[in-house]
């Protein structure tokens, strides 16, 4: 067990996987010098052939990832900020997400598109998006969002070994935070959620940067005697709905905390799934704590206001506890 920052954990994952499998290659803008530090040292260690700086050409980058993967490599394509996924979106949405299916399963596409996402550092609307809803809807892209250094390492290693296109999104604000990372070849399987805190009163599903926020809220609520179960899906597509449903069947109440904009968010998807599959167990409305449908503002107080914080999670949990089944408005009968 070592303490390290998420960025270091990612760096370790990349280093170990590149050492393990010579067919793992990595390219992206300035990956050699490494803006975030996550790819630092890889070029020195694995050579300029396997680790390449690209021009600023997201369109061809995302497409080349598909071609190199189809031709037998495991490709890590670093997209820097998640907003630049939009710039290279064509090949992600039209090729990577569909090529295996369209060709009747002829190929495997082991690709990891990685990027940093989310707000909190006044980088402005074009550097702060949380684009996973769009990716989750494509159907052919696995979407992974870690919340801790250990998960980041284990999930990234699993993503690289996966034979399918994966978008790995590192929450910007968590990159520098320290956490315990087990030694050795840790793998966190894709599609498996993690119960970050067990509790019987309310289920709170929290994603990425929101996990820590939610855990803090849970601490606070625990002092009031409210036991929150905090579930981190870790993989957003395919989602481990079984774990979420089991928890809701136990608690009867659900809050989803998501750094994406509300409409069509992962929170909406989780809410819809539960409203469909665990309706009978629900005691109260499902509440979403999300970013309202705005571009991310630059000014610090505005940015702070827009991003869900501990208090907004606490408020939502209290609200869901205060409304019992049928305690509110009744069905209107004509």
């Amino acid at each position, binding site marked *: 067990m070592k303490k390290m920052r998420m960025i270091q954990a990612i760096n370790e994952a990349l280093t170990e996987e590149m050492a393990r499998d010579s067919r793992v290659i990595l390219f992206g803008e300035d990956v050699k010098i490494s803006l975030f530090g996550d790819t630092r040292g890889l070029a020195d260690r694995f050579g300029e052939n396997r680790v390449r700086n690209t021009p600023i050409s997201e*369109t061809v980058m995302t497409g080349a990832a598909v*071609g190199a993967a189809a031709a037998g490599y495991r*490709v890590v394509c670093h997209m820097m900020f998640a907003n630049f996924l939009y710039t290279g979106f064509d090949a992600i949405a039209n090729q990577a997400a569909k090529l295996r299916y369209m060709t009747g399963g002829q190929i495997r596409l082991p690709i990891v598109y990685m990027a940093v996402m989310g707000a909190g550092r006044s980088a402005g609307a074009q550097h702060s998006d949380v684009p996973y809803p769009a990716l989750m809807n494509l159907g052919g892209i696995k979407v992974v969002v870690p919340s801790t250094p250990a998960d980041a390492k284990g999930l990234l290693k699993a993503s690289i070994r996966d034979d399918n296109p994966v978008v790995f999104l590192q929450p910007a604000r968590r990159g520098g935070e320290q956490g315990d990372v087990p030694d050795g070849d840790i793998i966190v399987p894709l599609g498996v959620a993690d119960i970050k805190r067990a509790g019987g009163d309310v289920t709170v599903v929290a994603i990425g940067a929101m996990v820590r926020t939610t855990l803090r809220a849970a601490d606070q609520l625990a002092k009031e005697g409210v036991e929150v179960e905090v579930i981190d899906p870790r993989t957003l597509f395919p989602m481990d709905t079984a774990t979420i449903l089991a928890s809701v069947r136990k608690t009867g109440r659900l809050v989803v905390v998501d750094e994406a904009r509300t409409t069509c968010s992962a929170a909406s998807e989780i809410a819809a799934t539960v409203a469909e599959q665990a309706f009978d167990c629900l005691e109260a409305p499902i509440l979403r704590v999300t970013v309202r449908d705005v571009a991310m503002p630059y000014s610090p107080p505005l940015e702070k206001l827009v991003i869900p914080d501990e208090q907004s999670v606490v408020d939502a949990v209290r609200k869901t506890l205060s409304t019992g089944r049928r305690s509110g408005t009744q069905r209107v009968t004509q």
Partner: protein
Amino acid sequence: MNAMSSPDPDPAVALEMFQRMLLIRRMEERLGEVVTTGELPGPVHLCIGQEAVSVGVCAHLDDADWIASTHRGHGHFLAKGGDPEKMIAEIFGRETGICGGKGGSMHVADFSRGILGANGIVGGGIGIAVGAALAAQLDGQGRVAVAFFGDGGANQGVIMEAINLAAIWKLPLLLVCENNGFSEFSPTSTVTAGEIAKRAEPFGVPGIVVDGNDVLAVWRVAGEAVRRARSGAGPAVIEARTYRWRGHVETEKSFLSGPYREDDEIRQWQARDPLAAMERWLVSAGAMDPSALDRIRATVAATVDSAYTRPLSDAYPAGESAFQHMFA
């Protein structure tokens, strides 16, 4: 590159090219007929008149080399050795199709033969070919990757990104533009400034214009470019000037408000039929004794017949297949 001084192809290669062109022609003609019967599920884009480009280029490739193709992709598929029957089964949406019926005309692919697939996205194959070229370079086996694209596709920015990246990395990549005079219904000059091949030059990449109806000329410049690429000297752009005899998409006359080209223009280009030209050359070069011609015709006819027979009695895919193959 001094392509014009290259020697002529061996007789066997020349005959093979003729046969491939003929196969593409006959397969496509038949498809054009079938469309009118309404039996085909989806749209098809025929490449009749353009056969010399795919065949002249692919004559230099083997199964280990890669090609990425376009919406007008049957010719590339067949030129690279794709199975005609499986192609037709695919276009008819049968489970025996090369993609299990899930792709259709615009997605025929055979990775075992290096066919990365036709593509419904104009320019979509370019990035994929760049990636395959990167893989080829890393493999170090002298493989190359070819992206076919149209004059319309040449206006997608990805082509510039690809040329630049391939130049910087010296990728074994051929970017082959089939300039058939139209981007859908827009004549090339109305949407495309300047000469496409020249777009390579600012990057220090050779840009070669070739008569796309002359399979020998295509074969020569492609051969030179493939040799260069295999040797590690980097990418090339080839612009093959040709013409499509058929519509952009079959049955287009049924929905377009009017014509977008002169019949006379079509006739002029038909007079420059790449197949007829090759036949003349074969005879004059003495590469073919007269009976060989007939044998090839018979072989092709038989292949075409069986390609359009067996698949039609094949089953449609089972329902569960709709939910398979999203993930490995």
